[in-house]
């Protein structure tokens, strides 16, 4: 994933690719419901540059035609949007009820120690960002976490170490 450096002070210009993607979604909704495309639009920007700086959210708002604050509301509501630049790999640990009952606290603690960062932070080498999320619908195999787009389930401190190593070595 990793994030690109973006000038957050200048006006943000949506790339050709992103605009195409937003248009694609806009077509699916009636004209007076344009804002329904905002989720997909934010995803498109995040795919493109890895995170959502304010000026990029403003550009999305202006493109779709909705108040800036309404886009911030959406982006801050969902965990999958990165409001800060992230590392090469994003680790999201589920701490919702089933995982919590199965010991997600320990998983978080272990990860924090191992990576020497707190929830919401990125390792100094820019390799990992650690976040907590709500239920990812893999409760059956709790506790679980997602690294980038892959699920890792039935976690134990030992399996965590292996997984981390794998991502670290996998350049």
């Amino acid at each position, binding site marked *: 994933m990793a994030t690109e450096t973006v000038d957050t002070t200048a006006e943000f210009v949506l790339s050709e690719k992103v605009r195409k993607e937003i248009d694609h979604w806009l077509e699916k909704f009636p004209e007076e419901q344009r804002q329904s495309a905002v989720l997909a639009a934010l995803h498109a920007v995040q795919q493109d540059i890895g995170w959502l700086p304010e000026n990029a959210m403003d550009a999305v708002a202006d493109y779709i035609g909705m108040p800036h604050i309404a886009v*911030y509301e959406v982006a*801050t509501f969902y965990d999958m949007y990165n409001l800060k630049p992230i590392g090469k790999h994003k680790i999201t640990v589920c701490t919702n009820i089933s995982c919590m009952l199965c010991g997600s606290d320990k998983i978080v603690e272990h990860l924090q120690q191992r990576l020497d960062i707190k929830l919401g932070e990125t390792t100094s080498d820019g390799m990992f960002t650690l976040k907590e999320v709500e239920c990812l619908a893999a409760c059956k195999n709790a506790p679980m976490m997602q690294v980038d787009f892959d699920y890792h389930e039935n976690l134990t401190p030992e399996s965590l170490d292996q997984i981390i190593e794998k991502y670290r070595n996998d350049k």
Partner: protein
Amino acid sequence: MVEIEIDGKKIQAENGEMLIKAADDNGITIPRYCYHKKLSIAANCRMCLVEVEKAPKPLPACATPVADGMKVFTRSPSALNAQRSVMEFLLINHPLDCPICDQGGQCELQDLAVGFGGDRSLYDEGKRAVANENVGPLVETRMTRCIHCSRCIRFGDEIAGLREFGMVHRGEHAKVATYVKHSLRSEVAGNIIDLCPVGALTSKPFLYRGRAWELDAHEAIAPHDCLGSNIYVHTRRNQVMRVVPRENESINETWLADRDRFSYLGANNDERVGKPMIKREGQWHEATWIEALEFAANGLEGVRKQHGAEALGALASASCTVEEYFLLQQLMRSLGSHNIDHRLRETDFSDQKHLPLFPSLGMQIEDLENLNSFLLIGSNIQREQPLAGVRLRKAVVKNQAKAMSVNFLDHTVNFPLSEKLVVAGDALLFELAGIVKALIADQKELQDQTEQLLKSMQPTAEQQAIADKLKQGEKSAIILGAFVQQHPEAATIRALAQLIAQASGSSCGVMSLGANSAGAYVAGMLPHRLAGGAVAEKPGLDAGAMLTGACRSLLLLNVEPAYDAANSALAEQALAKADFVVSLAPYLSNDVREHGDVLLPIATFAENTGTYINVEGVWQTSRAAIKPFQECRPAWKVLRVLGNIFKLDGFEYVCAQDVLNKAQEVIDAANFVEPQWFCPAPIALPKAKTQRIAEWPIYSVDNVVRRAVALQESLHYEQPYGARMNQATANKLSIAGDSEVMVEQANAASICLPLKIDATVPDNAVAIEAGIEATRGLGGAFENITITKRVG
């Protein structure tokens, strides 16, 4: 209509109405936070839970529509239990900091906690805290107190048309915030102070200044725009502490513009002059009232003896009271001069004989929201009359009204414009004429009448579109803004606007300047008309003539000519040229300080009793809430005593009511003949020169708001003053890369201003604000201007 029963009381309710509304209309109290009758229904606080027969659980009264035969219990054990539980939940995260909270004593949460809450909580864990935001100098935030009712968010979205607050993050972390730090920009933002049921949003200028129970409320009228919003002035120990709206459905509903809410700060300003002052040998000295009054009277008398009564002139602001206007014109006319005017910002008086009794909206303010289409001509409605903008927005958002605008600047409006033409000064006339031409294609009679005027016109597609939309609208209106009345061809513009209205079946009206233009017209504050509109036999000089130096002596009532007149430079020169200048004003403005001879300090709005006539023609009397500052006196008293000193007849008034009665009597007896529409002269081709477009910024419209510091600071996000022009104009003048330029106008000093590239300015125009110190001494508002490179 359906019949329902609430707490055993049978009541009638509209079909589809919500329970809470039916209860409110019948005086039954249901507790609530998120519900507000002027906002959409959010149903998120759950405080309004009531028991409804046959419903398994308590229902929210604000989101439950009435149904025939419904039986509702607002105080049954189940309802009370639900309400108590909701209160307990809301208090989980609410700090119990009432002793240091400004909302204490006027807090809905406090009241409802006492009325409906329990006396202890099961919750003893830690409370969450939310960081405050700095949202500018008007609104103070304490976001930990927020109960997430979302009223402030809905207000921005639905009423102000500018969403500034939102609910960001989620669950435990959800908070009301602007996300990106900024000062509130809406000109009606102050209303969220009233809307917020808790102490999360309070008035910053009033912060820690007082408690609600120490204040006395006085009914009054806001004196800064032609709507005449109703207010309460809250006072304590003879000081105005704050101003809040007084509900009046037909004018301001429950709202108030920030200008009306915070202008009291200007009246409390240190610049107030508390004692009469006389200038002797270039120095101002304090004096007693009797000295100052005699000095003023002698000065005027001296000029009159030497040069005749025609050498005397009187100018008043467009926001004085009917009583003051009536007395001032009585005084001047008794002294033998008809040189009386209040139209300082106007420049075209050529149609004055043809104008109606007073400038009127031609419809009810309340009806603005029912329009189907409207055309704003030269109006910055959101800034000039903020609450009229709010009404029009409702027409657009709720009725899908077609909003259209023909203007000198591309002003932001908080509703979508379906047609918009932005052209520099004179070209506006052509646009209007084109619209007329498009409208009268099938109206033979009007064609004949306007043959000469419109001979060479060929409507463009845009003009045609405006014409069609006006015709299609069942209820349509033409509204001339305050901005356009300053135009040197205002008479032609007015005549064209009337033609458009007539040909499209629309109403035609103006949003007049100041708070009481209507009152000034009716009370005879005009050179050509007496009170009630009777024709003055020998018309005197208009404001334009008086300010080009035609008067040896000027009597100023609440005006600061260098800031209030259409042409600042000429106005100041006129003052300098005059032998004797008397100023009745609450402040010693710079222009009067330099050129005046005597200052008679007068009361400001909350210290004064007087009548305002709004743009709809409604007379509203505002009574003094406090005694005038130090030795200031209400202007009507000063004028009365001047009359006595001159030993004039008819100046025996004892109170403001006497003056009003007399004015009323004269006005009722006057015989005003409604003038006929007249066809203006054919329009000349626009000059190819660069024209200045001068607007008075929202908080520079009169002497009081100019001194309301918090209001001035609230504009800091805006581009500071400067010479604003679009890129093309800057290129043409070959100054595009410069940061500062020299601007010069006829008969005026040349000054240096920052250059701002601004796409909202049309070609060949330079927008430079008037009414502020930085541009004092420039020339006419719509006149030619020369822009040159700054040397050195």
